[in-house]
C-alpha cells in the first residue's frame, strides 16, 4: 500500500517534469522557426493561467452546480454524513462539504482547490446500491483526491496543456504568413527545422497524452490512498465491480465533468477503457492492484 502510493507519486512528478521538458522543447523550436523566439512561452503560459484561474478557484461551485448536486445535512443523510466524518478523521483532513445527486446511477466525485474548500458528492444510486464497506471505499477514494491535492495538480496540467496548444497554434499561424526567421545565422539547417516543425505540430497530441497519463496515475494513487484510509482495499474493489456492472446512465454527466467521477460515466460502459486517451485506468487493473495489496 505504502509502496504503491510512493511509486504513484514519483510517476506523476516524472510526468510533470516530462511536460516541462516538452514546453522547453517547444520554446526552443519556436526560437528556431519564428521571429517571436523562445520568449513566446511566457505570454502563452500567462494566457493559459488566466483562462484556468477562475475554473480552479471556483472549481467546487462550478462542478457542483453543473452536476445538480444538493447539499446534504447531517439530519437528512446521517449515514453518508457519518461515513464522510469518520473518514476525514482517519485522514486528518477537515471535513468536506457533503452533497447528494438525485440520480439512480451509482457514482461519486470530489472537488475543491484544497482541503479547506473541498466537497464530496455521491449519487442516490450509490447510497442505495453499495453496502457500508463499499461506500467507505468509494468515499475514501474521493477524499484521497482531496488530500493529494489532485484538483490543483490537474489544473496545473491543464495550464501546461493550454500553453502547449497555444504555442503550437501560434506557430501554425506564423508559418501561414511566412514569417520564418531566415537561417542567416548558419546554425539551423533544414533537417533541424523540419524536426522542430513536426514536433510543434504533434505537441498538442503529446501534451494531451501526458495529461491523460497523469490523470490515470492519480486515479491509481487515490485508490491506494483510499485503501490506506479504510485499511480495507476489498471494499473499494468490490464497489468498483458493482459500479461497472451497473448500466444505468448518469444523466448529469457531460464531457467537462466526466473525468472527476470515480468511474468515467461516459466512456466506462462503452468499452473504451483501454486507450491512451482514458482519464481513468482500466477497471480490471484497478481491482487487481487493490486485491494485491
Amino acid at each position, binding site marked *: 500500500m505504502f509502496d504503491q502510493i510512493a511509486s504513484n507519486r514519483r510517476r506523476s512528478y516524472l510526468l510533470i517534469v516530462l511536460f516541462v521538458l516538452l514546453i522547453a522543447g517547444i520554446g526552443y523550436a519556436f526560437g528556431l522557426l519564428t521571429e517571436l523566439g523562445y520568449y513566446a512561452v511566457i505570454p502563452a503560459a500567462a494566457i493559459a493561467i488566466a483562462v484556468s484561474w477562475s475554473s480552479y478557484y471556483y472549481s467546487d461551485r462550478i462542478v457542483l452546480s453543473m452536476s445538480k448536486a444538493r447539499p446534504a445535512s447531517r439530519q437528512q443523510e446521517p449515514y453518508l454524513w*457519518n461515513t464522510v*466524518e*469518520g*473518514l476525514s*478523521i*482517519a*485522514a*486528518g483532513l477537515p471535513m468536506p462539504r457533503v452533497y447528494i445527486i438525485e440520480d439512480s446511477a451509482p457514482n461519486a466525485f470530489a472537488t475543491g482547490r484544497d482541503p479547506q474548500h473541498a466537497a464530496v458528492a455521491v449519487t442516490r444510486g450509490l447510497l442505495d446500491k453499495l453496502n457500508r464497506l463499499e461506500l467507505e471505499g468509494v468515499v475514501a477514494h474521493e477524499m484521497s483526491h482531496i488530500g493529494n491535492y489532485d484538483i490543483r495538480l490537474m489544473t496545473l496540467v491543464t495550464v501546461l496543456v493550454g500553453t502547449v496548444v497555444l504555442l503550437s497554434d501560434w506557430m501554425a499561424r506564423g508559418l501561414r504568413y511566412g514569417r520564418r526567421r531566415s537561417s542567416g545565422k548558419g546554425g539551423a539547417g533544414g533537417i533541424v527545422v523540419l524536426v522542430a516543425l513536426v514536433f510543434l505540430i504533434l505537441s498538442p497530441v503529446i501534451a494531451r497524452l501526458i495529461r491523460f497519463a497523469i490523470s490515470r496515475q492519480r486515479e491509481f494513487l487515490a485508490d491506494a490512498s483510499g485503501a490506506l484510509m479504510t*485499511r480495507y482495499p476489498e471494499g473499494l474493489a468490490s464497489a468498483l465491480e458493482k459500479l461497472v456492472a451497473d448500466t444505468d446512465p448518469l444523466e448529469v454527466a457531460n464531457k467537462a465533468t466526466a473525468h472527476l467521477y470515480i468511474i468515467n460515466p461516459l466512456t466506462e460502459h462503452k468499452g473504451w477503457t483501454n486507450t491512451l486517451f482514458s482519464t481513468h485506468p482500466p477497471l480490471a487493473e484497478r481491482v487487481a492492484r487493490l486485491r494485491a495489496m
Partner: protein
Amino acid sequence: MDMGITAWVLIGIGGLIVLWAIVTYNRMIVLRNRIDNAWSQVDVQLRRRYDLIPNLVEVVKGYAAHERQTFEEVTKARQAGIDARTVQDQAAAENMISQALRRLFAVAEAYPQLRATENFAQLQEELAGTESKIAYSRQFYNDSVLGYHNLIQAFPARIVAGMGGFRPRDYFEITEAEARGPVQVQF
C-alpha cells in the same frame, strides 16, 4: 587572496548540508506537531465517550439497580481514562473501559423494557458512533507516529533528530488480546 576551487567546492557542499539539515529539522517539527494534533483529536472523541457513560449508567440503574458491581467497574474504568496522562495509561484505561462497557451491555440485555426505552436506544447509538470515531482517530494518530518514526530513525536524518532532541513517541496500542474485539452493541 586566492581561494582555490577546492575551497569553493567545500563551501558549496557545506552550504548544501546545512540546507538539508534545516529542511529535515523543519519536517520533523511538522510531523511532531501532527502527532500532537492527532492526539488531541483522539482526546476529543474519548471525552465524548466519558460524557456519555454516566448517562448510560443512570439509565441502566433505573431498571437494574442491584447490579452494583458492574456500575462500579464502569465508573472506575471511566475515571482511569479521565486521569490518564500518558498514551500508555490511556491505552490501559481503554482496555478497562471496553471490558466494563461490554459487561454493562450484557447486563442490560436481560431487561427488555430497558432496551425498548428511547433513552437507552439513543445512548447506544451515540456510543456506537463514538466508538467508530475513536477507532478512526486512533488510526490517524498511529499513522502520524509511524511517519514521524520513519523520519527520525532513518540515517542520516537521525543525526538531526539527535541534535534536535526528537524522541520517539508511543503508539496507541491495545495491550490485551481480550480487549481486541470492539464493544459489541448487538441486541
